[in-house]
């Protein structure tokens, strides 16, 4: 089947830092998880590809808790982004009607992923502090352009993890969330007058690639 293509979108916020973790420990944990898992998956994938065995990718990945904490960090980022954006009051009418549920969904995702991690005996990552650059929510176009970047990032991040999840129930939950992120991505693109259907197949990004974008928002 046609392989989902990997791609790199322009960085939201021009690559300026928007995530600030509560403390160094949290920040290092996020970076380490993403780097270790990202690098590991690349190597495993490369090795598996050389053997012509796609299933090997699943057998040797970092555990699902790392993937869930990675997802949780991105969901925290999205939830906070929409909360602040909607608080700014730049949207009205149909735009507002369509974006309010997106915020609610992202908050529900944060809760669901947190609960899942806890249920599995894991430790959910702390919610980072976010600082969005001045002007991010100044007008509808700024808000939605950044929203679009986040949504497409979220979609590709989830799809990148699909083959790496070890547990079928976690996969089902992650897929159920990913589908909603696709709806968000399409609607936000439409509100911007952009193409809601950039490809017949959702694209993927590895954790490493997503981190490349996210880490530039983390204050060092």
């Amino acid at each position: 089947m046609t392989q989902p293509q990997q791609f790199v979108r322009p960085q939201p916020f021009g690559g300026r830092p928007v995530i600030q973790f509560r403390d160094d420990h949290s920040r290092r944990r996020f970076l380490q998880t993403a780097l270790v898992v990202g690098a590991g998956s690349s190597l495993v994938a490369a090795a598996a590809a050389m053997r012509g065995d796609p299933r090997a990718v699943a057998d040797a990945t970092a555990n699902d808790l790392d993937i869930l904490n990675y997802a949780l960090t991105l969901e925290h980022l999205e939830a906070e982004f929409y909360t602040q954006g909607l608080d700014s009051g730049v949207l009205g009418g149909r735009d507002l009607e369509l974006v309010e549920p997106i915020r609610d969904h992202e908050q529900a995702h944060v809760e669901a992923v947190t609960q899942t991690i806890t249920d599995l005996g894991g430790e959910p990552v702390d919610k980072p502090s976010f600082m969005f650059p001045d002007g991010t929510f100044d007008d509808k176009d700024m808000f939605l352009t950044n929203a679009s970047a986040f949504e497409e990032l979220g979609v590709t991040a989830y799809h990148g993890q699909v083959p790496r999840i070890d547990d079928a129930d976690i996969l089902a939950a992650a897929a159920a969330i990913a589908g909603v992120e696709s709806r968000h991505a399409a609607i936000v693109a439409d509100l911007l007058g952009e193409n809601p259907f950039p490809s017949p197949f959702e694209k993927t990004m590895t954790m490493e690639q997503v981190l490349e974008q996210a880490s530039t928002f983390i204050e060092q």
Partner: protein
Amino acid sequence: MNRRDLIRGAAVAIPGSVALSMLSAKWAFAEGVDDFDGPVDVLNYALTLEYLEAEFYRQGNEAGLAEGRAADYLSTIQTDEEAHVMALQDTIAQLGGTAVPAPQVDFGQAFGSLESYLETAYTFENLGVQAYLGAAPALFQQKELLSAAASIFGVEARHAAIIANLQEKAAEGGVYQGAVETPADRSTVLQAASPFIVAARTY
């Protein structure tokens, strides 16, 4: 290949009701993973739905009901569905399987107006989303197929949202179906699709 040939190529036609009961027999008492007899079966199930969607949009767009942005979107959705059909056919062939032929379809009065075209599209797209999610566990061990199916699933979700927005449906419960997508099992999906299947060909 001409799209019409792809969808309606010559074959023995059997009545739709009979075909569906034949199709249903082996999973009537099954759920989840047991709905399917291996990956080719899952892919053929998806292919059947994609045939339906591709032909639906081909006929609907041919009817010339939409204009402007709606027409552009519906045209893109049609080519997306056609790409899904071809991808699934290719994949089934690569796995050494036999792709099911396209069913004969009848969309009734769906193209009587733009409103009914969009409402039927809305039904199809959300059904597709639910079907892929419901079938995902059956592909769990085949990571490459799982990823590919997921990549189609996400695009169906995009279609569903945009169709609903063209209809100016309510955001929650229309454009979005909650914070998480809901799966549907095979028999539920086929029951929902059955009104549009006049006949399925056998081989």
